[in-house]
């Protein structure tokens, strides 16, 4: 079952093309969207959320053409939960009040049902105790959880999360992973946190300079880096990146190993760095 489909979707702002024509099908499960800053991840999410029209191509959500009629776009929006990268909260609102408002925007007209839904999502993100607190008085992590809670209202078929774990502590991140992994629909997470991808995602899409560089499962991504990551007394020659580990040995991603170095199982981060290193003249990442 396809939840969302992009066919040759591109986006330009003026003369700057931020997204090359992209074709993607999204199915139920958790999909990680990786890429450096400016790769087009946020633009892709905004296009899917229908807050930004594409420059070309066609976007379908739950069978509705987001680029089609107003009615189709509205129907698509009924199936979407969206967490923007930055959420600006109205001043003076409480956590409950903010979610109540978003629930109204999501057409929860019956007051009792709406309040029950608000309490449900507050409980999901463990903010039940903070329901009456003003948003301005919540910590950064609590505000992020509140922003995530609004996206969960109505258990949407397509959940679009832009950097959801930014500002969350390890416990809260683990808790969020628990929530997201239990959702029945399709979750698309744009993130810089490769640990989140390896812990949570069935599928990874790597964007770079507006184009899809990789689209496959986490094991497939790891396979691209197999035998290319080493730990040794010295850095590999021409490594994409290296760093000194806590044991004093050098972790090298890519390049030719020197005597004494041994291969280690790659992480998603290693594979991602290798992919970036091979797809660009990525001098900045070399150490």
């Amino acid at each position: 079952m396809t939840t969302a489909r992009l066919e040759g979707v591109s986006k330009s702002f003026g003369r700057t093309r931020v997204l090359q024509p992209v074709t993607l099908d999204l199915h139920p499960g958790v999909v990680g969207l990786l890429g450096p800053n400016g790769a087009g991840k946020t633009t892709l999410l905004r296009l899917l959320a229908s807050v930004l029209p594409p420059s070309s191509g066609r976007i379908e959500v739950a069978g509705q053409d987001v680029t089609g009629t107003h009615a189709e776009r509205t129907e698509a929006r009924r199936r979407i939960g969206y967490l923007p990268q930055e959420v600006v909260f109205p001043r003076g609102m409480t956590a409950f009040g903010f979610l109540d408002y978003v629930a109204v925007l999501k057409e929860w007209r019956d007051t009792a049902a709406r309040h029950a839904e608000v309490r449900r999502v507050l409980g999901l993100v463990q903010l039940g105790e903070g329901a009456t607190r003003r948003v301005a008085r919540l910590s950064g992590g609590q505000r992020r959880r509140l922003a995530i809670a609004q996206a969960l209202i109505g258990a949407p078929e397509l959940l679009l999360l832009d950097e959801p774990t930014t500002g969350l502590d390890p416990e809260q991140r683990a808790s969020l992973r628990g929530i997201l992994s239990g959702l029945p629909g399709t979750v698309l997470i744009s993130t810089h946190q490769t640990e989140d991808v390896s812990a949570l995602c069935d599928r990874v899409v790597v964007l770079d300079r507006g184009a899809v560089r990789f689209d496959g499962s986490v094991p497939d991504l790891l396979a691209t880096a197999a035998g290319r990551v080493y730990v040794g007394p010295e850095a590999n020659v021409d490594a994409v990146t290296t760093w000194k580990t806590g044991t004093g040995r050098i972790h090298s991603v890519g390049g030719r190993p020197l005597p004494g170095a041994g291969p280690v199982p790659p992480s998603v981060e290693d594979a991602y760095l290798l992919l970036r290193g091979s797809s660009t003249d990525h001098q900045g990442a070399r150490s």
Partner: protein
Amino acid sequence: MTTREWHVDGATWTAYAAGRLDPVAQAAVDAHVVSCPACRDGARAQVVSVEPLWEAVHTAIARPRLPRSLRVLRRLGAPEDDLVALAASDDLRLPWAVAVGSSLLCAMVAGLASAHQDAFFLVLAPLVPVLSLVAAYDATDPVRELAGATPYSKLRLALLRTTAALAFALPLTLTVGLVVPGLRPLALVWLLPALGLTGGALLLLTWLTAWTAGGVVALAWALVVVATERTGDVTVLTGPAAQAALAAVGVGCAALLVVRTTTLHTQGVPR
């Protein structure tokens, strides 16, 4: 009554949970439950049934209270969800005030200092509601990005917010028209142009962005006033014929807006 001969029945539990038992009966239930496993199970069942009550209590505590003006509207039968949307527009008060205030200030300065005071006031005063509309729609909404991805009718949101903005803007504009010397004769005649322009902007909003719709309407109106002034007396716009025509434009736009929203509604777009 001994613990062996008696068990707490449903009616007693209901009265106990509601606090309707007298102190002696309540103490008897307390003492009995301690020594009776069957009734302890019954007590647990009561706890389960009380859960929705706790939910309701928590919700009543957590739910923010609507401002007094909106509570009055609720008593008058306004839908609760519309009132929640309006209450969430508190952050827009400042942009509304800035839009309306700056427009009025321009009109006052022009009215006091310029030989073309009538034209200035006639250009600016009817645009106050349009400016309110633009500010109210999405130009300064902090949750614009979130709201954009929801199915709620943006036009409905605009209408709700415009109504709220006008409740503030209209009396203020009327007061300025009545108080500023020389503007008194014009104090009321801007209302019909304002109706026409706001209707036009709302109609255009079903196709265009708020800024574009507001800009098109403002430019068109400014051209009308300037052209009228150059051809002779701008006060012709305040005459009965022009006022009737502007009223007709307003009513026409309102009718077209109804037709347009009905068409969109039949296509599945929420009102």
